[in-house]
């Protein structure tokens, strides 16, 4: 890890501890925008990491950005940092200058994409899309759609949309965004390859969730270990009981495995597309979420099951995020297609990424 990245991590921890508190997270669930938190992140240039300065970004690389996102996950930061990163990265790849606006991005593989019609004074957009993260607070939405000339990527000002509020398991805003034949004179349209762009958003989104989950797992691990040392029953701290110790060990294992998987996927994404690694990581991190959350709740017992305690900030997010951008089954099907293309005895080449002549390229 670079010195720069360590500094970024230190500052992010300070920001999160001050501005992503229990109260802020709870208020966000009640519909309050975490303005202070967002503004500080913007002020520190943390919403445009891994984008060159000449395009309005604050430089740094993807690993830096994901180290921030990991902490956003750990502290349940109720802001669209993942979405803003993704949207800004895609826009800067298209040569666009990025802003400090609050962004969101939608991945929908539904059969009814938004329809765009070109008019003299702008574009008319029609259709609706569900589960758009933080749409009610965001200023811009980056989304794929269809126009007469083919597949497009559109950057839309959300003031043109009707928002129907919705929530995921963690009470995070996942809104329905509705466009009723609105004429927009301020949207940007890019012509793109539909499948490639869909993959970019899907894989990128999965990586953001994987790393945020790795952070959330670390949080429940710390909460659980601390609770088990503070809580006494039968005259001793519960961490002295072997049954509880085994819970802690399993939780430690899942936390370490999820962090390893997510970090390896980030490293691969940094080098190239990292598609295979992202798929493998999302499976492993999802699995860890499913195993770790029940353990944490079992150890914290009744208090951890209450709104009063903060354990649910992370466990509910883990349960929500594991289903966003692909469940285990979704990703297993994708890997299975790659396995099907292997020759006999080639599985090991895929795992080690070395075959006798060249690298195994999948996807």
């Amino acid at each position, binding site marked *: 890890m670079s010195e720069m990245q360590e500094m970024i991590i230190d500052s992010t921890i300070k920001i999160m501890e001050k501005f992503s508190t229990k109260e802020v997270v709870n208020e966000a669930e009640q519909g309050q925008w975490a303005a202070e938190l967002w503004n500080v992140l913007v002020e520190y240039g943390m919403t445009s990491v891994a984008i060159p300065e000449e395009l309005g970004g604050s430089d740094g690389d993807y690993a830096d950005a994901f180290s921030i996102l990991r902490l956003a996950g750990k502290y349940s930061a109720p802001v669209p940092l993942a979405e803003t990163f993704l949207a800004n990265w895609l826009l800067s790849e298209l040569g666009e200058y990025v802003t400090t606006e609050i962004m969101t991005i939608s991945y929908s593989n539904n059969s009814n994409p938004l329809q765009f019609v070109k008019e003299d004074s702008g574009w008319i957009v029609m259709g609706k899309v569900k589960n758009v993260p933080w749409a009610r607070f965001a200023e811009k939405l980056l989304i794929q759609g269809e126009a007469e000339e083919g597949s497009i990527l559109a950057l839309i000002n959300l003031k043109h949309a009707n928002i129907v509020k919705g929530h995921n398991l963690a009470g995070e805003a996942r809104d329905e965004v509705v466009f009723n034949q609105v004429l927009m004179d301020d949207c940007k349209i890019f012509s793109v390859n539909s499948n490639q762009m869909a993959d970019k958003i899907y894989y990128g989104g999965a990586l953001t969730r994987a790393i945020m989950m790795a952070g959330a797992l670390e949080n429940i691990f*710390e909460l659980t270990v601390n609770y*088990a040392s503070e809580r006494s029953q039968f005259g001793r701290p519960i961490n002295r009981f072997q049954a509880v110790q085994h819970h*802690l*060990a399993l939780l*430690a294992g899942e936390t370490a495995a999820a962090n390893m*998987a997510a970090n390896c996927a980030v490293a691969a994404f940094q080098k190239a597309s990292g598609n295979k690694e992202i798929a*493998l990581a999302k499976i492993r991190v999802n699995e860890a979420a499913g195993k770790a959350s029940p353990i944490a709740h079992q150890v914290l017992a009744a208090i951890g099951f209450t709104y009063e305690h903060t354990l649910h900030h992370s466990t509910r997010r883990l349960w929500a995020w594991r289903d966003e951008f692909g469940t285990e089954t979704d990703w297993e099907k994708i890997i299975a297609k790659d396995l099907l293309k292997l020759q006999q005895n080639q599985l090991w080449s895929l795992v080690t990424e*070395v075959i*006798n002549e060249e690298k195994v390229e999948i996807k």
Partner: protein
Amino acid sequence: MKTLKIPVVELPKETEILRREVRQFIKEEKEKGAFIPKSDCWLSAVSLEFSKKLGSRGWIGMTWPVRYGGGGRSAIERYVVTEELLAAGAPVARHWIADRQSGPLFLKFGTEEQKNFFLPRIAKGECAFSIGLSEPDAGSDLAAIKTRAVKVEKGWVLNGSKTWTSGAHYADYMITLCRTCPQDSNNRHAGMSQLAVDLTSKGVTIRPIHLMTGEHHFNEVFFEDVFVPDEMVIGEVGNGWAQGMTELAYERSGPERFLSTYPLLNELTNRLIEDEDEEGLAKVSRLVSRLWTLRNMSLGIAQILEQGVPSNIIASLVKDIGTKFEQEIAETARLLVSVVPSIQSGSQLERLMAESILHSPGFTLRGGTTEILRGIVAKGVMQ
């Protein structure tokens, strides 16, 4: 609270050449009929000839200094060679313990004479070691050992017995943990020493204990007034416990802790590809995701161990998850292909499945039971 950070290792480009060399060698050996892939090969596939071939290629004692017959290479290079051999199910059991544990023990604590004597022999694949730890009344509670050595002129007289000793029937020496002082109830770990016992010595009796498959792997070893010369004491008298513990992180986080049944996973995948069974391959994908994660954890630990970072907690954790994974491969495989597993079967898949199922109880016992490991992890993270 201890953190569980494990670095991401990017394998240096040079290791690809080494990896291809190992693969080429394995391919040729298989074609010559020198071996057929076995599950749990690092414990149960013994071949002096194969070990010597590896030795002559420089693939035993790879990280040891050249002056002791080693290869002077990095831990990551050794990792590449060992994982290739394990994935191929190659017969590496004969030199495994000496290469992994006994050699490094001599390097760290041995005398110059011991290093000069033992290391070149081990590196050639000629000299095999076994580890004498468990006794009839000391299993997980290792500090309860009773085997004792009493000082005499120029050496020690050893009495007692060891059990569940892997490979004692072909090993040349045993690193024997024994008491050199009576047990101190205030410090149970004090007063133990490590002796390199020549298993051809007078007074040593080795009896087989057959595994439930009928294979001869375990032994009980009896010592009756066995004379062990002073030169065969490893490290300091009385420091045996601490010395033995230092190697545990290596022992617990290596690729053999999650690849024991890999040959079955490979064969299962082959079959599913042949059958174009996408649903089955989706189940395999879950295992591949776990394998990929475990391998990266294990590689990360290999790297930080080389830098001298204590890694006992994460190593124990990898062994816990890894050995469960080894067991799960067989449990997944049997549900995806309907076959009758049998050790005697001529079908590779059926035989590997049988080996994997019948060897599976050992995975979570050897080298520290799951229960002991979880205790170590839990106590470690609470500190």
